[in-house]
């Protein structure tokens, strides 16, 4: 199977597949490469995991607990090992391709943002060696009360994915974006047809319906100005008293990229390992340097930093806010802190 991630700009092929035959398609994909799918975990929680059985695949879910980034930016990874006698040895990476099925538009936007972050100032080889071997089959979704993608302009995606499925009544409308997506389709090309006129009408109707389902709106016009003007607002103080600084909001965020680099040593074998693992900017010693100086010790400053960063911090590099509006942070927060509310308070 050949592989190319380059989306064919301006060119998009639309097909349809009957819902009842999706299983055959996914099995064919899973025969060809590692397939990751969303599955139900708890009462209303979902996770991405290795495909085992089609009946377990979640087709109607809002969000997974952890975004799909962990498949190419794992919570912790060994970069290399070192021994006195053999020197450096960079951990090798398996050759297999991974396809992640069921990724929603906001998370695809999140991946686009991470891709840029891991390219700024030079490509991160550990990120890209995994990322280059991951393809995506996107899936349309309907919003719940936490979804903010419409406000964050991430409710649609025309990039990043290889194939995208829009759920209609009896079929999925299939958008094929890359040559790799085409390779996947051709594994079972007899399952795919051209869309009929009726299906196109249905697609349009569904899009309109979905658009009217968003109950939460966050006004982000002139937010950069407001956050700058309200840099010293007491709102930050107030929320930082409520925040537990547990870091959950960061661990679940599809666009958080921070990490720590540290060494561990296996004394019995005389091997040391260099590890990188996810870190959280809200942690107290995140900006601490030798000699004890901490550039961001104050609670309110740490609380504020995350907001500034999601909304405006990297706008220059990314060309957009780095929040995709996936709603995970608001749903996860044990203190009930909600981004929409914080931004509303700043705007007042």
């Amino acid at each position, binding site marked *: 199977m050949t592989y190319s991630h380059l989306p064919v700009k301006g060119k998009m092929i639309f097909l349809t597949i009957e819902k009842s035959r999706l299983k055959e398609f996914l099995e064919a994909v899973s025969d060809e490469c590692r397939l990751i799918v969303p599955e139900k975990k708890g009462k209303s929680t979902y996770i991405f995991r290795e495909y085992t059985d089609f009946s377990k695949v979640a087709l109607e879910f809002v969000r997974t607990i952890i975004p799909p980034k962990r498949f190419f930016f794992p919570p912790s990874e060994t970069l290399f090992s070192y021994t006195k006698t053999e020197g450096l040895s960079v951990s090798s990476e398996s050759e297999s391709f991974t396809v992640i099925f069921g990724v929603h538009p906001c998370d695809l936007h999140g991946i686009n943002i991470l891709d840029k972050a891991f390219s*700024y*100032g030079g490509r991160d*080889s550990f990120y890209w060696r995994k990322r280059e071997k991951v393809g995506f089959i996107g899936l349309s979704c309907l919003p719940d009360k936490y979804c903010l993608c419409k406000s964050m302009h991430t409710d649609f995606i025309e990039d990043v994915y290889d194939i995208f499925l829009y759920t209609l009544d009896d079929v999925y409308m299939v958008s094929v974006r890359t040559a790799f997506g085409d390779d996947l389709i051709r594994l079972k090309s007899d399952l795919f047809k051209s869309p009929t006129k009726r299906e196109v009408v249905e697609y349009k109707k569904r899009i309109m319906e979905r658009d009217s389902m968003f109950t939460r709106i966050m006004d982000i016009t002139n937010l950069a100005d407001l956050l700058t003007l309200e840099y010293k607002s007491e709102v930050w103080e107030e929320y930082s008293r409520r925040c537990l600084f547990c870091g959950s909001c960061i661990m679940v965020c599809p666009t958080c990229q921070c990490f720590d*680099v540290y*060494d561990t040593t296996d004394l019995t074998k005389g091997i040391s390992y260099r590890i990188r693992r996810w870190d959280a900017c809200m942690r107290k010693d*995140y900006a601490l340097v030798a000699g004890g100086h901490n550039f*961001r010790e104050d609670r309110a400053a740490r609380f504020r930093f995350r907001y500034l960063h999601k909304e405006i911090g990297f706008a220059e590099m990314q060309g957009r806010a780095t929040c995709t509006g996936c709603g995970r942070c608001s749903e996860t927060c044990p203190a009930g802190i909600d981004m929409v509310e914080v931004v509303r308070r700043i705007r007042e």
Partner: protein
Amino acid sequence: MSLVPEMATLVEKRYLDPHHSLFRFIFDNELKREGFGFRPGQFVMLSIFGVGEAPISITSGPDEKGFIELCVRKAGRVTTVLHNLEENSKVGIRGPYGNGYPVEQMLGGNLLIIAGGLGIAPLRSLIRYALWRRDAFKEIYIIYGARSPENILFRGEMENLVLRNDINCLLTVDSTYGQPWNAHVGRVTDLLERVRMPLKDTSVAVCGPPVFYRFVLNKLLSLGYSKGKIYMSLERRMECGMGKCGHCVVGHKYTCVDGPIFTYWDAINLPEIF
């Protein structure tokens, strides 16, 4: 770009003062040894395997080939283990990182270099760059202050600079603490009054501890230097050095990629700078 360092050998260790030493490294890989180029003001990530990494400015000059030198203060885990290493020990080095001083823009003008304490580390590289092509600059002033005479890093080198008549090198200490000393005693800001060169066309490079910056920057502004021509080197926590880990972010800039050298103007416009 990779988080994997190149192997290098510590070939020489020179005691500077009780807390600082100069370390000379050569890359084990010959291509890297010959091909390693950098700008003054850039830094490397130094690895001691099993201990960790630390960002350290390159203190040798970009025209000196075949080795690099780092001037390091014993500050914590990595730097203390480094101080205890024997010559011929193996370390890892990756880089160079950061923007470095905009030397092309400085060429042809006057240069004012102001260092406090360990702030001399990146500036020594800039000094070497400028002296290597002395004719490419007009006037050059170097002002260096330390706590006491024994804390003047690279003392012999600095005193040789004082003797040169094609540059003005002024040294000062906060107090002599009873040690022999025949240069100025007092603040670096006193010495700034002695600088005699047109403000126009003068680039100023400042590096030192936080309080030092505060005094020097205020003085420079009161003397009329342009905020856009004062270059400072920011220190922040760094884990990757390549704009990925987030630790060094100030406002909306990565100190490791967009800096560590910022003009005073750019720096004051970053939220959370001071």
